[in-house]
């Protein structure tokens, strides 16, 4: 069987190459970089909002009890799209209480996702320093294609889900390392033509983040789009 032949040949070449190495000791990697953030919670959230906006995401900040009302305003069907907003499977029903016609993900095939007004999901965590949302595609977060095909992606995140640094995010994700994970930092973009940043190449053209927390009034007021 040539496959196992190739495998053995490559492994033998590697072993032959590294046994001649002078350094035989197992080098331990020293993590001298910053693992844990140093900002106060409100600073962390302010940074998260600033970084999201810098990469063209829209941010709406609401009090925890105000999510349903905000969604009621944001998830309106529009004339441009034949299919209404799609809600990810497991998305909290009480948050959708004020939304008129939302299609459940189970009823949305590729064609519906392609033509819908947008998709609404929760997420696993947010990273402030990079302005990133992480989805592990569990309940409420949608399957991977669900947050990819629609024109708009709206995601709800609680302040407690926002960490400051990338290593803090990986510490929280350690238990779900083998789940499908998607890190989203702003809407899909390209700079392939003359380094001009263009939004919405193949993924959603618009990314909206609803940040829910009771002490959110610390932030400057934001307009609902």
């Amino acid at each position, binding site marked *: 069987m040539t*496959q196992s032949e*190739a495998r053995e*040949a*490559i*492994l033998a*070449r*590697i*072993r*032959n*190459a*590294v046994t001649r*190495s*002078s*350094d035989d000791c197992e*080098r331990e*990697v*020293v993590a*001298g*970089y*910053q693992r844990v953030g140093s900002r106060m919670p409100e600073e962390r959230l302010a940074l998260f909002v600033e*970084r999201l906006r810098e*990469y063209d995401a829209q941010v709406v900040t609401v009090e925890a009890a105000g999510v349903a009302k905000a969604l009621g305003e944001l998830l309106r069907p529009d004339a441009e799209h034949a299919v209404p907003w799609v809600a990810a499977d497991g998305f909290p029903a009480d948050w959708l209480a004020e939304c008129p016609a939302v299609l459940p993900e189970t009823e949305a095939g*590729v064609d519906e996702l*392609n033509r819908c007004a947008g998709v609404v999901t929760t997420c696993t965590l947010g*990273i402030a320093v990079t*302005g*990133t949302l992480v989805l592990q*595609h569990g309940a409420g977060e949608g*399957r*991977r*294609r669900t947050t*990819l095909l629609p024109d708009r992606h709206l995601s709800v995140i609680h302040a407690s889900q926002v960490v400051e640094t*990338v290593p803090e*995010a*990986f510490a929280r994700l*350690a238990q779900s*390392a*083998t*789940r499908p*994970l*998607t*890190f*989203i*930092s*702003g*809407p*899909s*973009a*390209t*700079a*392939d*033509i*003359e*380094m*001009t940043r*263009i939004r*919405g*190449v*193949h*993924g959603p053209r618009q990314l909206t983040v609803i940040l829910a927390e009771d002490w959110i009034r610390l932030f400057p007021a934001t307009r609902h789009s």
Partner: protein
Amino acid sequence: MTIRVGESATAPSFQKAALPLLGDSQLRKNLRHATEVIQRRRAVVAGELPDWQALRDAAAAVKQKTLRHLDRYLVQFEAACTVAGGQVHWARDAEEANRIVLELVRQQNAGEVLKIKTMTADETGLNQALEQAGIRPYETDLAELIVQLGNDRPSHIVVPALHRNRSQVREIFRERMQLPDLGDSPQDLTDAARQYLREKFLRVKTAIGGANFLIAETGGVCIVESEGNGRMCLTLPETLILMAGVDKVIPRFQDLEVFLQLLSRSATGERMNPYNSIWTGVYAGDGPRNFHVVLVDNGRTGILADEEARQTLECIRCGACLNACPVYRQTGGHAYGSTYGGPIGAILTPQLQNMEHAQSLPYASSLCGACYEVCPVKINIPEVLIHLRGRVVREQQSAMKPEALGMKAIAAVFRSRRRLEAAHRLAQAGQAPLVRKGWIHWLPGELGAWTAARDLRAIPKQSFREWWKETHRDAE
């Protein structure tokens, strides 16, 4: 072994290929603009992290450790990926890698495939192999699409169509997508690509890509991208085939916390690129049902054996060294005649080719060190360049090339005062027809290589020794 690195086995020398490119003012304008913009952005977001140097150190340490135990980590990755429902294949060289992929595509009876930007498949010439077998590959990265539709070659690791400006892209799209009224704003062009590819994403059932990182601990794969074409390809088709160099493996899931901080900041000057996908094997009801990873050697284990050059394999393909290189910024990527251009290409290509081709590339550098300074994994490229120049020279010496013989003769002359003085007198007498106002602008034959790019001072009437003898007679 049929090692292949793009067209590098038949490409002209760097010096020869660079000449016509240096005369292309549009190309140089495009290059200058793009590399300046990326460099500026990179400097801002790298400078923003107080622990940037510590991250570089950690990344280098992880990569060194991985390479030292590469066999163990590859086997670990294979086992974990297989348990999770993936299939791992091994390819010794480019031909074997292409053969494996072709066989997998044929099993799906696919006449067309989606492609995610992959340097490894470009290295092995996969697209040509697919086309020869009657299978149509669709490049889905915007820049790769521009290159493919323009029958062109990529010129940059991260931004392959960096040598094209908007009006050149419009011409290509107008003709190949049959859009006579297409505008030339980057927005119009990007919209055209979105429309052109959306239908293909929804229809084509097989996708081929590369990988940024293979995680030994979990058997997972990480793909870093911006446009969403990668996510399309790895979630919509039924079959997904990845081609990845054996150097792409990292030990732990957690190691990504280092590399993901370094890669996009170095590559595009973004704090994080829009999409990172990490997944492990196959998931019921989400993504492809058939998942294959082809581990490609194609000369990499040869590099591993050279301890001084091994660090070449630590590269994470961010392209920062290209943007920083004063040589790349003049010539662009095509002069390097390989999938990999710029400083990293200058050390990677000849080594993958076992120094049998691309021997001019280690000389395509002024050794200024800018590449080392920006490298997120701290590859000391100038050090490796010098090491490789040594290998080239030693090989030429053993092959008795004219330059090596000339150097030997010169060494013999310099070793003896008598011979040096005789040579001096001979040159003084012989140079007369060549000297113009104290300078020599042209030398005949092999020596002309020196004067092709620089002038030579004429040999003075009197040497220092002669002057000393004359003026210090009394002292003696």
